């Protein structure tokens, strides 16, 4: 038990370090950039309408107060953290006066849903197929499966999503290619709404799964084909242990430990992929919000999305790490 607590404490420390580092990097990037957010917003405002010089001066003052620029760096850094801990990152400019955080929270469930479902599917299918392919090395089906997934794996998320979009959007339009749910469905806990959401999430999730499968498949196949040659597996086979038991509890289970560690390490990358996929399929999550905010020059929303995504990814990695001792008793005993 003590070993487990030590493990959790170490992982929690890492999580806070990631959040601290990520947010500080974000602050530095914005602080050191040659472009002043106040002037940028002003430029956008005055490009669209005729403002009197007094109005511009007043707006500049208000914006400076809102962004807190013009103070010494450390004060700004401190203020940044205070506001962050209160969950207040200012009002969004593209949807004024909605707080930027609220916009992010609106997009969050969509992104999380897509990320979670596709990650779980990819992990299970990829590892299962990879494990079986490693155990039954001469099976034709697994060989073919391996070639297809390995061929898809190196291609960037965007290109795969785009090809799927072309296939299902232009050549064979059977599934919705845009949005989170149908226009004519009222959001709520009704059967039609849930069905519509599921239907719309199919293609984005499918494209994420396609790209992700190969990595797990290759990793698991390599691990299993090494474990199969171990003495204890040969011994179990000679002792007449059932093949299912050998594959399931002796081979795959041991191979799963490094794969769970790898799962924690890939979450950051998958998150980036989710953001991109959302943009391709016009999915109403944090990714689309981020792109819209950048295009609208919405400083607060961009910062809010970045902060929340760094925090969320760090937390997700922490949770996956907690699963690790369940599979590997050595961590508990340490």
């Amino acid at each position, binding site marked *: 038990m003590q070993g487990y607590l030590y493990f959790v404490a170490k992982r929690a420390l890492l999580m806070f370090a*990631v959040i601290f580092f990520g947010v500080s990097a974000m602050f530095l990037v*914005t602080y050191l950039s040659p472009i002043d957010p106040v002037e940028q917003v002003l430029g956008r405002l005055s490009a669209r309408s005729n403002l009197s010089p007094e109005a511009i001066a007043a707006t500049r003052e208000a914006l400076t107060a809102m962004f807190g620029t013009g103070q010494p760096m450390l004060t700004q850094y401190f203020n940044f953290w205070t506001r962050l801990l209160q969950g207040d990152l200012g009002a969004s400019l593209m949807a004024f006066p909605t707080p930027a955080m609220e916009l992010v929270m609106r997009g969050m469930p969509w992104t999380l849903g897509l990320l979670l479902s596709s990650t779980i599917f990819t992990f299970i299918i990829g590892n299962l197929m990879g494990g079986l392919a490693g155990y039954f090395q001469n099976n034709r089906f697994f060989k073919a499966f391996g070639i297809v997934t390995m*061929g898809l794996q*190196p*291609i960037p998320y*965007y290109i795969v999503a785009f090809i799927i979009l072309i296939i299902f959007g232009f050549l064979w339009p059977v599934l919705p290619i845009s949005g989170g749910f149908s226009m004519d469905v009222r959001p709520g806990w009704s059967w039609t709404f849930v069905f519509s959401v599921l239907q719309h999430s199919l293609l984005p999730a499918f494209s994420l799964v396609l790209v992700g499968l190969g990595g797990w498949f290759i990793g698991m196949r390599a691990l299993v084909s090494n474990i199969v040659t171990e003495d204890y597996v040969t011994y179990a086979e000679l002792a007449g242990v059932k093949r299912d038991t050998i594959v399931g509890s002796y081979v795959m289970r041991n191979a799963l430990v490094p794969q769970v560690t790898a799962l924690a390490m890939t979450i*950051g990358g998958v998150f980036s992929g989710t953001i*991109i996929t959302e943009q391709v399929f016009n999915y109403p999550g944090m990714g689309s919000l981020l792109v819209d905010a950048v295009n609208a020059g919405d400083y607060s929303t961009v910062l809010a999305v970045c902060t929340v995504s760094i925090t969320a990814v760090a937390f997700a990695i922490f949770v996956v790490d907690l699963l690790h001792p369940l599979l590997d008793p050595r961590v508990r005993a340490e």
Partner: protein
Amino acid sequence: MFAVFRDLIRYNAEFTIGLILVGIMVVFASLSFFAPMDPSLIYMTIPDQPPSAQYWFGTNSRGQDLFWQLSAAFKNSLIFGITVAVLSRIISITVGLAAGYLGGWVDRVLMFINDIFVSVPIFPILVLFYFVLRNNMDSFTMALILACFGWPFDARLIRSVALGLKHREFTRHAVFAGMSTRKVLLEEHLPYVMPIVFSTFMNNMLWSIGMEVTLAVLGFTNINNPTIGTVLYWANSHSAMVVGVWWWIVIPVILIVMTFLGLFLLAVSMNEYIDPRSRLRRMGA
């Protein structure tokens, strides 16, 4: 070196296919040095011409010959990928070898930093960089940023090899002979990790070019500089697929898939070369 190469081509179909694909793309990309016009200029030819004998890959709606356009785009993207890979290799070799050999608190601190870099989601940070730099973000700045985030996975890999080398006989001999730490790392340990460095080089190129494509497609780079991503960006912004200029999308996508598959196959087959067991299995021993 040459014998290794010959064996790889003879026994490893993946290596051969990868080599051919990457070879084709490198030749195609270097053709851009002989381009008859500057690829960033627009309205140089008749727009929207389908592929023909005169325009091999057709022309796009911006009046550019796609053959030369794509050639320049692949040259820029490959150079970009190589820059990122070289820079991040330098960091990962330094960190990996130092952490593995020195051990102790140096190792713990370096690996802690390493874990942080692995965990931070890079995409939002890249977008943030674009957001604050706007048009000051040229491809070299982006290469620098990506290199800063592209090293941790490989540093860990190199460290695990260096850990094993530390207790080998020859390391002890070198230390007793009075070699400095820097010399031990560079002259004794570096050759052992070179195969890993080569295979991760390809993987890193894949990753960085993929990132560049993604950012460019969203319009978050200098869109007037032809790269793989910006070609797709312009195709999208002219709705190429809808108006029927399909070659503007299909040809780049085919070439991208060829490049990525080629690099990936090279990386995979190099990995196999590093592991002698799988090499023997393939040679039928």
